């Protein structure tokens, strides 16, 4: 079962999963994963392709609901409330737990409208001025304001790949979430754009609980304070990032980190 490092200091858990299993039809994609997502840190999920790390990430804001055959067992809580209970409002949940996808997916609308989308559907702004302020603040936090402030009415799809991804992060920030889930946010980007996203993650750290799924172990080492290693649908090892990379307790973690497979 999962090896959890014992030297973890106690922190507030923003989200926690207990014995979570995910099925696609009859196939078990995630097998009894338990983990606590701390409020103040960046948590990285690493592991080889198909190990279930993205699937698990998507259970945290119930994006798996959009796949008809997917079924979740176990308990996932946000601030102590079960997010899979029948009374849970998925709309509210997703406003609190935002998500950034593998491939930048700005809407085919203007940059302004992309950011304003979330605040509008959740009724966060009372007038044009307030909306303008939210858009500006979100773009500034995403480090995109200087590049786009003169062309907010241009289409979001006309930006470069890296800018599009920061736009998507700004879009997620605009509804002021508590948790941001990032599903391999840099896998479609070049190294310079990747470096900018990593900088941005470092800046956002502390303001939001961030969970990032990544293929790149270097990236996990650079941006995260906690790392969980997934293999074949199971969480193998969880601990401080520095410990996982320098002093793993499990042989499989050791093998993956040293490039034996994956």
């Amino acid at each position, binding site marked *: 079962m999962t090896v959890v490092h014992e030297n973890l200091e106690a922190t507030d858990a923003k989200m926690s999963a207990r014995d979570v299993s995910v099925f696609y039809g009859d196939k078990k994609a995630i097998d009894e994963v338990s983990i606590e997502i701390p409020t103040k840190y960046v948590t990285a999920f690493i592991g080889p392709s198909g190990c279930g790390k993205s699937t698990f990430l998507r259970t945290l804001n119930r*994006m798996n609901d959009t796949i008809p055959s997917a079924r979740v067992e176990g308990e996932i809580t946000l601030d102590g409330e079960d997010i899979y209970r029948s009374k849970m409002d998925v709309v509210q949940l*997703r*406003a609190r737990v935002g998500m950034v996808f593998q491939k930048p997916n700005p809407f085919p609308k203007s940059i302004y409208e992309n950011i304003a*989308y979330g605040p509008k*559907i959740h009724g966060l702004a009372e007038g044009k001025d307030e909306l303008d302020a939210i858009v500006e603040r979100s773009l500034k936090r995403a480090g995109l304001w200087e590049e786009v402030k003169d062309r907010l009415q241009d289409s979001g799809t006309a930006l470069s790949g890296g800018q599009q991804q920061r736009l998507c992060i700004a*879009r*997620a920030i605009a*509804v002021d979430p508590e948790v941001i889930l990032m599903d391999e946010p840099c896998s479609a980007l070049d190294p310079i754009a990747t470096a900018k996203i990593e900088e941005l993650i470092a800046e956002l750290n502390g303001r939001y609980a961030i969970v990032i799924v990544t293929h790149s172990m270097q990236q996990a080492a650079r941006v995260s304070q906690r790392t969980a290693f997934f293999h074949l649908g199971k969480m193998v090892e969880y601990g401080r990032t520095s410990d996982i990379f320098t002093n793993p307790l499990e042989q499989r973690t050791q093998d993956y980190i040293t490039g034996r497979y994956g």
Partner: protein
Amino acid sequence: MSPTILLLLALGLGLAGWLAARARAWTLRRESADGRLSSLPTYHAWYVALWIVLPVLAFVVLWSAIAPGLISQAVLSSPAAADLPAFGFQRQTILNEARAVATGAAPAVFNPQARDLVEPFRDALSYYNTIGIVVTLLIAFLAGTWAFLRLKPDFAARTRVERIVMAILLAASLVAILTTIGILASLIFETVRFFGMVSPIDFLFGTHWGPDPMANPDNPDASRYGAIPLFWGTLFIGAIIAMIVAIPLGLMSAIYLTQYANPKVRSWVKPALEILAGVPTVVYGYFAALTIAPAIRDLAIDLGASNPSSESALAAGLVMGVMIIPFVSSMADDSIAAVPQSMRDGSLAMGATTNETIRRVLVPAALPGIVAGVMLAISRAIGETMIVVMAASTAANLSGNPLESMTTVTVQIVAMLTGEGSFDHPATLSAFALGFVLFMVTLGLNFVALRVVKRYREAYE
């Protein structure tokens, strides 16, 4: 009769050439040093067969165009033809009669003059048929021999055959294009004739439509050729009333089918919807005329209208709208389905409901495709005839009241061409001018629609 024989002959000769060439190629292959040809034996066979069939086909087409002329010339120069009426209808009838008997299509003649012509006709027919067959054989033999003699172990028959096949395919695709150009040319020709009698200004901007096919054709009353009421009727029925029905219903059914319906429901509803597109428009016409139009009239009476028409623009437009639903729906369906899943995920992950996602992301993203579908639907609707003939009458009427009877461009084209007027009367020719306008409008709509679709396809890789 004779072209059919020539065609069968061509195919038979082609088959013979094919078999001979294949046998020859096999022999070449056995005799060649390394037992290989640069092309397979079948390619050699096809090469020879095509060289026989294509020239013969070309000759047959040419021959069937000129042979009837040659035959009637021969008949007319015979002594029996000397006392035929000089020209006109009667002369043609007699010739046709003689011809029918000579070819065996009719048992006996009615006109005694024709009886005398049967024999010359028979002679001419057999004479020219023999020439046709001989020339066919000659061409087939010469071309076949030429092709056959070219067969060698290193002869690139495959390349040649591929090239000929490509040329045939090209010719096939040109047929449709050339037909369109031909239609357009004939339309333009007649339209220019019409505009020589009635000025285009009167036609395009006049507000009274009522051509009189019995009036003096040399001095047409231009004020009766104002097509504005027809253009208005066409727009009102096809582009306004029909679209008010078709756009919301088509769009909503597309949204339901792509976003809400489970696969089982979809597999039933979508084909059922597409059946609508296959219903003959005459059947819609019955429905409009017998069911919808009376219902609308009754409704109008209930609403207090005095003496409403039993034929109404509303009835035709409503039924036409229903007919158009599958067009709008299937185009909208395709373009909504083409919006990447990542857009949908992105919106849902922001906490949007399915409904908000559809309204704010999917439909705007699919809008170009939806617009293109609507344009194609409009161009289909304004070209529609039967429903309007049956449900909206043939009386031109420039009115904004959907309960009144109205007529459209297509209906008037039919009305003008099926009247008793002579062909060069302006009333008849006006049908061509109307057709030309309709052609240009639908061409423009289709062109714009295709451009929109093309641009939209580029939006997502």
